[in-house]
């Protein structure tokens, strides 16, 4: 099983990655490009998972080489679970990428990272409502201190695909 960590640059994606993996991580060059990516392994509920820290990207419509590699990695792992790491102070932007991932039929978990920053800036996010609307697990995290990472791991096995058509109708009725 493979877990892909996706998110914008500077959302603390590699901090999440470091929390999830053990010491045995490798950085390698994506063939034919100048882009490097990191991967490691972890055990969740007795099952071994391969975790890939996908290069930071703003959308799945690639604009440069790093974003192209991000898309290639995503498309290569059709049966992967995707953890979309979002900066909690920039939820809208992050959801854009999360939607794109869901639209491609990947089961996903959303990590609302940098939750402490959002609290400090008086940003209130109704996590359970968000979970209810999107029908994917949403977990507030502070990767730097490790807060929420355990819950994030717990939710990974329960990630399922989302029917976009239903989602669209549901949101339109809000």
């Amino acid at each position: 099983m493979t877990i892909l960590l996706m998110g914008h640059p500077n959302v603390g994606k590699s901090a999440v990655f470091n929390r999830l993996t053990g010491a045995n991580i490798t950085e390698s060059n994506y063939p034919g490009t100048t882009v490097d990516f990191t991967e490691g392994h972890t055990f969740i509920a007795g099952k071994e998972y391969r975790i890939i820290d996908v290069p930071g990207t703003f959308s799945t419509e690639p604009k440069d080489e790093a974003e192209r590699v991000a898309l290639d990695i995503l498309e290569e792992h059709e049966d992967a679970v995707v953890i979309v790491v979002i900066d909690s102070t920039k939820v809208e932007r992050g959801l854009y990428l999360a939607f794109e991932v869901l639209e491609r039929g990947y089961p996903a978990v959303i990590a609302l990272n940098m939750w402490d920053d959002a609290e400090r800036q008086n940003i209130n996010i109704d996590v359970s409502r968000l979970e209810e609307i999107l029908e994917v697990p949403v977990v507030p995290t502070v990767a730097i201190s490790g807060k929420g990472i355990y819950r994030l791991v717990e939710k990974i096995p329960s990630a399922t695909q989302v029917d976009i058509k239903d989602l669209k109708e549901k949101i339109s009725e809000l």
Partner: protein
Amino acid sequence: MKTKSTMKLSEMEYGERGVIREIKQDLKDQILGRGIRVGKKIRMDTKQPINGPVVITIGKSTTSLGYNLARKITVEVEEDDDTSDGTS
């Protein structure tokens, strides 16, 4: 008293605020994922001298764009007659 005028993003001054009205098609696709889109409120943070890049804030995200990219964005600027230090 507030008056409004339309200008290119590259022409905005420090601390000015406005609303994005138009983005040229070729740039539009490039910056959609970054949350820079028509209708969003925008603030000019800084502008580097001799046609260097601009730095703008939309919501909580701050982005820097090269001068020629900034020229492709049209903004309706609110000109605030009150003196303001731009930090509010």
